[in-house]
């Protein structure tokens, strides 16, 4: 995705080409101010991802906290009832997947905030694609910087750092419960005795299998959400290109603009499902994985 960005920096006088437009929209705002070139660079931080994810997480927490601080056991208001529906939904799923009452006291809230947070982050896709980046461009330019370097991505879950960060956090929670429930020795024994059998000769294979399982779970957990949201964002960009191809009052421009409206509407409607579904799937898998950490093979 970094391929078009070099071009984008050079284009100053005329509008960006479609490749430049998409490349610009797919570049994160990091602390270096330049697009990240290396696959992995621990010196960089995506400021936009952190800003929006923390902002949305804090917003979700604030709304939930408001509901919690005014919660009454009497007749609930509509707001409280709405939050209660959410809490009940998460509590029911947690009850079905995690059989330890004590663990549920931590894991159910974890699942709740996972769902709310990811839902909000995914829902950033519903904002007009260029709204926040364009505002940022204005601010950046007025501060005396080159507006072509005003990178901004508003959907944190379309950043693999965010989704993998969450899935790795879930992995850490799983490891914690593995040790807590089975004991360090019990878990170590399970690592070398399952799934093939408790034999010394099978131990390396068992161990390799378990490591692969943890890796696969974590990577697929994070990549699933990232892939869905990244693809959704990319399709919004492609749809936006149709309207961007406006060249004046001629037939192709009208047809493309019409296509933009129809496709944008259809994809946005479909995306409502994707946003809620991906948040739900991430939450359910979180519960499933933590539930598995409670059970022996």
């Amino acid at each position, binding site marked *: *995705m*970094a391929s078009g960005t070099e071009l984008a920096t050079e284009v100053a006088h005329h509008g960006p080409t479609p490749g430049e437009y998409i490349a610009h929209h797919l570049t*994160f705002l*990091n602390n270096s101010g330049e697009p*990240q070139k*290396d*696959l*992995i*660079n*621990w*010196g*960089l*931080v*995506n400021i936009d*991802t*952190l800003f929006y*994810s*923390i902002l949305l*997480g804090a917003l979700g*927490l604030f709304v*939930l*906290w408001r*509901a*919690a*601080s005014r*919660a*009454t*056991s*009497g007749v*609930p208001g509509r707001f*409280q009832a709405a*939050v*209660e529906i959410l*809490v*009940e939904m998460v*509590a029911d799923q947690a009850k079905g997947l995690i059989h330890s009452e004590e663990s549920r*006291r*931590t894991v*159910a*809230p*974890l699942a*709740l*905030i996972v769902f709310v*947070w990811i839902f909000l982050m995914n829902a950033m896709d519903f904002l007009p694609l260029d709204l926040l980046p364009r505002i940022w461009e204005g601010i950046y330019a007025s501060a005396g910087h080159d507006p072509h370097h005003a990178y901004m991505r508003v959907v944190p879950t379309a*950043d*693999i*750092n*965010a989704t*993998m*960060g*969450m899935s*790795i*956090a879930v992995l*850490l929670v799983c490891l914690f419960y593995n040790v807590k429930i089975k004991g360090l020795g019990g878990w170590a024994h399970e690592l070398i005795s399952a799934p093939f059998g408790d034999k010394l000769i099978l131990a390396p294979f068992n161990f390799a299998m378990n490591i692969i399982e943890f890796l696969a779970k974590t990577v697929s957990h994070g990549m699933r959400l990232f892939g869905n949201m990244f693809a959704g964002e990319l399709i919004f960009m492609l749809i936006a290109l149709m309207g961007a191809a406006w060249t004046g009052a001629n037939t192709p421009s009208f047809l493309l603009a019409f296509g933009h409206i129809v496709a944008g509407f259809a994809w946005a409607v479909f995306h409502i499902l994707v946003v809620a579904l991906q948040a739900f799937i991430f939450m359910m898998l979180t519960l499933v994985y933590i539930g598995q950490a409670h059970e022996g093979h």
Partner: protein
Amino acid sequence: MNLNATLIIQIVVFLTFVWFTKSFVWPPIVKALDERAKKIADGLAAADKAKADLANAEKKSVEELRAARESAAELRSGAEKQAAKLVEDARAEANRIVAAAREAATNEAAAAAQKAKDALRDQVAQLAVAGAERILRREINAQVHADLLANLKQELS
């Protein structure tokens, strides 16, 4: 697809959010839900109890009503019996009075008859004496034959 330190920060942010939710969001809501569930359960139990109480009260009232009706009937029959007894007593009393009156009348009549008989006997004796006197005026001295006449009178009675 570029990884950087955002990932590490995101892990910390995530765990912080989890801590906040676990500490300040989840417990009050779940507490409210549990309390409401308990309230509803209690309310339902109270409703069931009230229903049972109502059924009991209805049964009791029916019973009371029946008992009241029974005692009323008993009272009525007692009163009737008493009334009948009163009438009976009155009738017996009347009979007794009538009988007494009849007896008194009979006695009186008998006494009167006796009296009349005695008077008649006296008169007959006097008449007989008078007759005899007339017949035997000369031969019979009333003083001499007074005993005889008294015996005669005795015999006539």
